[in-house]
């Protein structure tokens, strides 16, 4: 298993990036995200070449959307490194990881479709699960789905 503190120290030393430990991952500032990914991917010690999970979480109270990445290394068969990025809920723009990891393409499109997170640098950012004409981002906490004809069987 990889200790997150050790990764935090490593990142600070080599890239000079201030990261803090939050839950099961490292909170990285949005501007340095791609450098962190590049570093983790090429560094001989880590070689994190496989992005397993990418998902968006909507923190309504802090009015922020957090994107969580879980990186693994298939070559060294080593455990997960959780990377977290926070953006504001209104204009949420995050640098896209697709140029580095092709595996993130569909998951980023899903995050855009359901949470409205725009990934700059993504090859074709379209809705993947809902139909293109759909407005609104259904998985956000404040999304209320007013059903057109809620017929309830019970009298």
């Amino acid at each position, binding site marked *: 298993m990889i200790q997150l503190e050790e990764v935090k120290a490593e990142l600070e030393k080599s890239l000079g990036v201030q990261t803090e430990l939050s839950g099961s991952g490292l909170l990285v500032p949005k501007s340095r995200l791609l450098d962190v990914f590049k570093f983790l991917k090429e560094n001989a010690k880590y070689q994190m070449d496989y992005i397993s999970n990418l998902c968006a979480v909507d923190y309504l109270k802090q009015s922020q959307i957090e994107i969580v990445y879980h990186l693994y290394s298939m070559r060294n068969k080593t455990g997960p490194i959780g990377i977290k990025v926070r953006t504001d809920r209104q204009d949420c723009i995050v640098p896209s990881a697709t140029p580095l990891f092709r595996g993130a393409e569909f998951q980023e499109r899903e995050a855009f479709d359901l949470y409205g997170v725009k990934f700059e640098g993504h090859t074709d950012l379209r809705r993947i699960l809902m139909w293109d004409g*759909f407005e609104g981002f*259904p998985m956000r906490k404040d999304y209320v*789905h007013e*059903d057109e004809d809620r017929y309830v069987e019970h009298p």
Partner: protein
Amino acid sequence: MGLASGSPTVDQGLKSELEKEGVVLTTLEQLYNWGRRSSIWPLQFGLACCAIEMIATACARYDIARFGAELFRPSPRQADLMIVAGTVTKKMTPQVVRLYNQMAEPKYVITMGACSIAGGPFKEGYNVLQGIDRFIPVDVHIPGCPPRPEALLDGLMKLQKKIDGQSIESAEWYQQGQKREFPIPAFGPKGLEPPYNPEVWKPREYEQKKQTEAEARKIHGTIHDPKQSAVSQ
């Protein structure tokens, strides 16, 4: 021929005697119904988990081929039974209604599984249509999630009974001027436009029927409906 003025009455006594001698006396109607009943070709059309149970019904252990329904026709033109097996989402509804329109006329619909009857466990979802009978008429509903393959066979046998009961005068598809082309819903910003097809989906009549029953009994107190509270939380 007595066809125009009501179906000809064949007294059963004569019929059973003739059958003993091997002579089968049947009206044209029963022959049509028997032909349609014993060779129903379902459309190869599966949506979700119930489709796997439908394939299991077509497989060796439950063998839908015994009922003559073995040929799952891929093209809607040659199929005459559409088994809606699985959750009908709003994104899939236009395709389902278009497929129903493309099928050749004496066509039947079986909604297999809770999801296609009324949304099932995914009823509260924003992308789930609460039952396909909002857009197309349905003949047999098979509850269950997923219903056992035997339940599908039982549903098929009930459909066969229903086909036996049909008569040429009263069947919709033989009437002139009967519009059997159902409008295909379009994708709107929030959901489907129109959300349901008023000709097919008539909950209001059903509502009046229940009101009259309720007045007759007149004993209900306030109804605590947990579902309402669950959704608004």
